[in-house]
């Protein structure tokens, strides 16, 4: 009996039509256990980001089932899938995707607001989170004033606002230097170890393997290889 906390079963996804059709995923079945850090690796066009989009309720499969927190989400309406993202899933992006007009603290406070518009003390919670991430001096800086590593820390803080159980990261260290990249790897690992979050990272970066519980290699929309740490 597979653990259906987070995963896809027999997922097929195609883009385009007729001759231009690209089969991004071909019957992929993968499940991610609660409280683990999993890597999804593979060459460009192998279907990594498509898999992440399915897990993040940003895309529906042509065939197959997507499970989030043990519930099949395929049949849900767009509004219901937005609700699932709001409550359970968060994202970290390669390009950070911070709101350019907001300061670091406002970006994180907005993360809290998006999770629960009624929650009081958003600014205080955002401040605490940023201080914990070593950004206490940068609270009121706008994104353009931050280094890439700092931007990614703010983005992770925003993603963790409201305490979502699932964190999906797309190439989170691709834009960072070695030191900043390693620090982000440690930060996400600590989220698994200390907070029990489930983290799925799509990456080309081999540095991640040291921090991961499991690595899935995709090729041409299929699972080519799967490694699990003992």
């Amino acid at each position, binding site marked *: 009996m597979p653990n259906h906390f987070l995963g896809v079963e027999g997922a097929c996804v195609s883009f385009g039509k007729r001759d231009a059709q690209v089969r991004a995923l071909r019957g992929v079945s993968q499940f991610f256990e609660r409280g683990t850090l999993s890597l999804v690796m593979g060459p460009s066009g192998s279907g990594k*980001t498509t898999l*992440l*989009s399915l897990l*993040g309720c*940003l*895309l529906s499969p042509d065939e197959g089932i997507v499970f989030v927190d043990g519930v099949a989400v395929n049949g849900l309406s767009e*509004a219901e899938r*937005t*609700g699932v*993202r*709001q*409550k359970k*899933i*968060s*994202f970290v*992006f*390669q*390009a950070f*995707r911070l*709101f*350019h*007009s*907001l300061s670091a603290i*406002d970006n994180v*406070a*907005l*993360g809290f607001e*998006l*999770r629960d*518009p009624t929650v009081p003390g958003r600014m205080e919670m955002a401040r605490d989170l940023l201080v914990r991430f070593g950004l206490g001096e940068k609270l009121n800086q706008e994104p353009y004033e931050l280094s890439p590593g700092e931007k990614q820390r703010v983005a992770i803080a*925003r993603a963790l606002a409201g305490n979502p159980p699932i964190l999906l990261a*797309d*190439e989170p260290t*691709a834009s960072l230097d070695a030191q900043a990249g390693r620090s982000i790897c440690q930060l996400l690992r600590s989220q698994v170890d200390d907070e029990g979050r489930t983290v799925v990272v799509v990456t080309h970066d081999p540095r991640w393997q040291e921090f991961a519980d499991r690595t899935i290699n995709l090729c041409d929309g299929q699972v080519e290889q799967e490694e699990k740490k003992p």
Partner: protein
Amino acid sequence: MKLAWQNVVHDRARFSVTVLGVSFAVFLMVFQGSLLTGFLQAASRLIDASDSDIWITARGVQAFEFGTPIEGRIREMAAGVPGVLETSRVCMAFAVYRTPNGKQQVVALVGADSNVGKRFPVPNAPGFAYGMSPDAVLYDVSDRDLIQVTAMPAEVEVNRHRASIERQIDGYGAFLGVPFLFTSYRNATRYMGFGPEEAMYILLRVDRAYSISDVQQNLRQRLPEVDVLTRDEFERKSRTYWTIKTGAGGAILTAAVLGFLIGLVVVSQTVYANTMENIEEYATLKALGASQMFVARIVLTQALICGALGSVLGLLAVVPCIGYAKSLIPWIYTPWWLLLVMVLPSLAMCSMASIASVRSALTVEPGRVFRA
């Protein structure tokens, strides 16, 4: 909604252009609205100033300024109708006025009986009469340059009759570009060459024990050769003539609508450009779990912020400008409610302007967040 505010003010140049666009639209709408309101008031000012309930005019008279003679005996006939308490007469005709220094000027000469109404400018009426001769002539202070009187009383000529300008009044300035002169009915008919058997407007006050419409119906039956109108009806008729039939109101209204459209285009353009520039952020918001309502609210709030600030700026600019314009267009009038009411179309304008932007923000695919 901090995001909405920050998005708007972050690009100061664009924000300034948007706010200026809205303020220009508000300025134009309030200015044109003031012209229209003042024009409507001026078109029926003398009718409003009478205390009468019913006006009797020649058949087909469209506006106060274009009265034609009726038989004088109609006054006696109307006075005999049950419910008619009091009658008075008003006449108006264009006349040639010769200034004290010999220059000629066309004027609109208005004559009225002293009982026509307390607000009606008649030299022999109670409130106006003090210190004036019964044949005195009054003019509006805004027409000083046209009347060219330096000291009062001043001997002038009206249709080659001697007349005495004795006082300035306020609020009855030139509406047709021709200054009004006010005098007694007796005097006016003399200047106009009216015979005693002629009249122009016969005004009736109705006993409160009678219904005005019943008296009007009775008069219509007895006097089929003239028009019998309530004061409100004659007011409306005059206003309709000047604003619709002459096209003047249409021109003013068109300018106001143009102001609205200019504002709409400016705000649409800038709000849309702002939305498209930030479209990736809307995708991020949606990926992070923002509802459609939340996204729409941000775009709409941005437009409304521009609308509110633009309205305030527009109102701050238009009030002194209208004050200055009063010296050139004495009948321009801005009621206090116009200033408040004009904020609504400007906010509506901004809301309409944001429709395309809201659509774009709502239809953006959250899945695009993974594109680097």
